[in-house]
């Protein structure tokens, strides 16, 4: 049996394509549980903000702690099979959180309304950047949630927190469920 350079090139191209799709699938499968968790927590956070506006940011600290602890447990369970992927996803979440606080230091004081839009948009920036490397789904999800967040910020008045609960909490849950199908 003989192979000419054209056939070799076609085989290598097939290999690259399958490798890319497999990586995408694995990332999708590993991200879905974390996304659903954050969606539930964030959705609950905005509902609490709507019902008890006097709490300001106190409940968000509890939500952040619960989210990162949950993510850590999810990644840890998965990391028995692939430690690098778990570390990457968790590190990305922590880097976004750290840079979020740096931005807030620069722009403080911010209104609760601005704060409500800031974190989702920052996280969606992470989604879009991750999507460039890992898979287009994250880009679509990041752009859609950012657009809906901005729409709420500029045009939704007294129902703003509920809008954000639906868009961010619901968006992350829907994204996580969709990723589970794709992965």
């Amino acid at each position, binding site marked *: *049996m*003989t*192979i*000419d*350079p054209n056939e*070799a*090139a076609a*085989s*290598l191209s*097939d*290999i690259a394509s*399958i*490798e890319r*799709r*497999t*990586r995408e*699938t*694995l990332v999708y499968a590993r991200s879905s549980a974390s996304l659903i968790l954050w969606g539930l927590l964030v959705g609950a956070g905005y509902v609490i903000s709507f019902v008890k506006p006097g709490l300001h940011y106190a409940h968000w600290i509890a939500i952040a702690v619960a989210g990162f602890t949950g993510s850590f447990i999810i990644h840890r369970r998965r990391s*028995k*099979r*692939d*430690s*690098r*992927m778990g570390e990457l996803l968790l590190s990305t979440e922590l880097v976004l959180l750290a840079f979020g606080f740096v931005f807030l230091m620069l722009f403080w004081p911010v209104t609760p309304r601005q704060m409500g839009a800031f974190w989702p948009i920052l996280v969606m920036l992470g989604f879009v950047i991750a999507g460039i490397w890992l898979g287009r789904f994250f880009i679509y999800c990041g752009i859609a949630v950012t657009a809906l967040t901005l729409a709420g910020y500029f045009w939704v008045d007294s129902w703003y927190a509920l809008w954000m609960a639906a868009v961010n909490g619901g968006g992350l849950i829907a994204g996580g469920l969709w990723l589970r199908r794709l*992965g």
Partner: protein
Amino acid sequence: MSGLNDVIHQAMRLKIMAALNVLGPDSALEFTRLKTLVAATDGNLGAHLDTLEKAGYVAIEKRFVGKKPQTRIKPTPSGRRAFAEHVAYLREILDGGGVRA
């Protein structure tokens, strides 16, 4: 230089090995997920996996998750080695620009 590996070079088996080679050391892919990735039918994928298993390139594990049967496939060390050698062989052909037997 590496030689042509007839078992791996077949188009579907090449795709199967490429997908499995992405996995971490102790990871496996479920049959249904692998089927989607390589765009194969159940029967076709099963036949090619059988060939790869006989060559010692993949390990197939069958188990039950609840009441549902699940088949998981992972590459063996010799499968990974054979795949790497085959890829090196394809690159050599491309770099050399000639026909190899």
